């Protein structure tokens, strides 16, 4: 198996395609399958405990998003149809979060920064720092909670929040700052960059990107051509549909779960 890591652009293509699919449909069958697909892909590329925790964070966040969006129905007339509609909108949002969680867990944000064109280096760096904060913050919360426990301060309830939030945020910011500082001190953004190793499109990268594009294309065709139900009706509520071609498309998005895993 090829030992080189996968070209980061492949993952961007995958995440964008999966996100597009989530965007064009509110069919819970496809959306929930996308959760399973994201989980599967993440499982195949999971690097270490830190990233595992950040993925779990995104998963939790997604479920919270679904719950919150569904609860929004209480601001209007409550009916089975409206609740279902709210739920489906929330599910769509949650799906996008889960996909992003997988993307964050399988890519190296700084590898992406290097690919950015020169004038985009500053915002790309900021984005990479932001992306790397998630796993770091999650790890940080656990450590700070432990540290406070060790001196007898239990973190529960809002009153204990400063004891948790302050060290975590401070450390997160400090780490990000140190990293940014060190990147600058090592010459980041100074002049023309050269490339140590070209990053070719390996077979693995192709197998990640191409099926994803095919999946997105399938859903695009369905959306434009109208030959499949992408938005199940909510009044009256019906069983959602699962078109086999679209199911196959979702299956294509799961291909990265079995290919391209860098051996460590």
């Amino acid at each position: 198996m090829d030992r080189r890591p996968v070209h980061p652009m492949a993952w961007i293509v995958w995440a964008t395609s999966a996100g597009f699919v989530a965007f064009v449909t509110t069919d819970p069958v496809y959306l929930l399958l996308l959760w399973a697909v994201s989980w599967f892909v993440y499982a195949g590329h999971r690097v270490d405990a830190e990233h595992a925790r950040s993925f779990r964070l995104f998963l939790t966040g997604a479920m919270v998003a679904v719950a919150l969006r569904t609860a929004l129905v209480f601001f209007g007339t409550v009916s089975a149809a409206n609740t279902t509609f709210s739920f489906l909108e929330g599910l769509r949002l949650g799906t996008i979060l889960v996909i992003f969680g997988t993307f964050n867990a399988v890519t190296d944000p700084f590898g992406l920064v290097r690919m950015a064109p020169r004038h985009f280096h500053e915002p790309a760096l900021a984005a990479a720092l932001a992306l790397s904060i998630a796993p770091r913050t999650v790890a940080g919360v656990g450590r700070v909670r432990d540290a406070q426990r060790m001196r007898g301060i239990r973190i529960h309830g809002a009153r204990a929040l400063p004891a948790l939030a302050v060290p975590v945020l401070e450390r997160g910011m400090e780490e990000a700052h140190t990293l940014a500082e060190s990147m600058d001190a090592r010459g980041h953004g100074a002049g023309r960059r050269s490339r140590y190793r070209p990053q070719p499109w390996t077979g693995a990268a192709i197998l990640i990107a191409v099926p994803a594009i095919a999946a997105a294309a399938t859903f695009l065709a369905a959306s434009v051509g109208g030959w499949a139900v992408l938005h199940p009706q909510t009044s009256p509520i019906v069983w959602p549909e699962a078109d086999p071609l679209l199911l196959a498309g979702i299956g294509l998005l799961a291909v990265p779960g079995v290919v391209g895993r860098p051996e460590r």
Partner: protein
Amino acid sequence: MSDVLRFDAVTYVYPEGARPAIEDVDLAIAEGSFALAVGPTGSGKSTLLRASNGLVPQFTGGTFTGRVSVDGRDTLAHAPRRLADVVAFVPQDPGASFVLDRVEDELAYGMENLGVDPVHMRRRVEETLDLLDLPGLRDRSVRTLSGGERQRVAIAAALAAGPRILVLDEPTSQLDPQGAEDVMAALQRLVHDHGMTVLLAEHRLERVAGWVDVAIGFDHGRVRSGTPADVIGHLGSGPPVTRLGQMLGWDPLPLTVRAARAAAAGGPRPALPPRDPARNGHRHGVVAEVRGLRASYAETTVLRGLDLDVHEGEVLAVMGRNGAGKSTLLRVLAGIHEPSAGQVQILGAKPRPGVDVGLCPQEADELLFSDSVEHEVRATLVARGEAGGAGPWLAALGIAGLAARHPRDLSAGQRLLVATAAVAATDAPLLALDEPTRGLDPASKERLIGFVRAHALGGRAAVVATHDVELAAAVATRVVILAGGEVIADGDPGAVLGDSRVFAPQMTRVFGPGWLTPDQVVEALT
């Protein structure tokens, strides 16, 4: 030889700083020097190091007067990224500055930024890997490296960019004695064989004093440079062999074990090491009991079948290489970490964190959240329902004078003392400290040692995980060495440390097993 780094009348005040961090500094470091910055914590060493590549003041703001030039370039006129081809900075925590995932890529990163052509880059990467003994690690993810390997990779990454001067902030603070020696040897090779200029700041003088040829002493922001013997001798808190030499009136003052042996050869040999009754505490009641402990960390099994007892009055030093499981053991003792098998009991019951055991973690900053030192300690007292003030705890660690200061404004070593005070305020029967001397200057270290000893005398016990050999020699009543997840040595400090090549304190290396501190030797000789 030209000067690679020059400071001309440099004074710098941090934004919101009350007084200058460095004041009126005149310094010239010649090409090919191996220079050491030494001084108490908070005296300006880090500031000076960061001023050498322009991070101070360009990243920190504040008021800056004077001129710093690196290879002739003014640091105010050039952004730090434009100085990257002449000066490379390795911060204290190398892990925090790794940008990329693979070791090889990390090495090439600096060169990529400088636009070096790929052929040249490949050659440099190979050379640097060889120089720091890293070729086997080239494909590895930096996250999977040990502390020592990380430090070497950070140095390699700084080197590969081909700077004229390498600046390192406490490069051995995270390393065990063997790792520290590897790094110092590599740096010396660079200086002697490749004409590199190296400037480093370090507290643990016993690890570095013998390697450097120029020392810069810091005192409240002012500097004085000279030969190592001159500067360190004047500090009053150098490595043990130097302190011994000062106490015995040796001239010239020895900086290395070798020099000390030479100086001692001419004088009387101390009598057989006395057994210090206060140090080898009577084996009273058992405070902590560990049986068959197995524990994992980050999906690897770290401790395999450990048995250990800690008695009243004991100060137990747990030593071992980086990754041997010291931290995990302490966390299990504290009740924070669940063992996968085995039993841990504190005073006969499962340990309650913060009540039965107070543990100060390696990263002291994880504890600090209050706006003043006093409040920080009070937070612990309030949590256990104690009405008293923070005063006694601060005084015990010698930081009463910092009571009103904001913890984030203090230096790293001071923050560590604050965290220790906050944990000590739990008044738990077992006090556990994880690497408590990281970044501590010798004076603060003395205070800590005094505190730990006093704590144990009160019928309690203390466990200290450390790879600071001199700390263990000075404070421990019993030493345990971990390796491969098991205890490989357990006993009297003189015996255990005397028996070990890696963990032998300087006094042992000079006078033989059983000799732990200069005070001990001096007492025996007088």
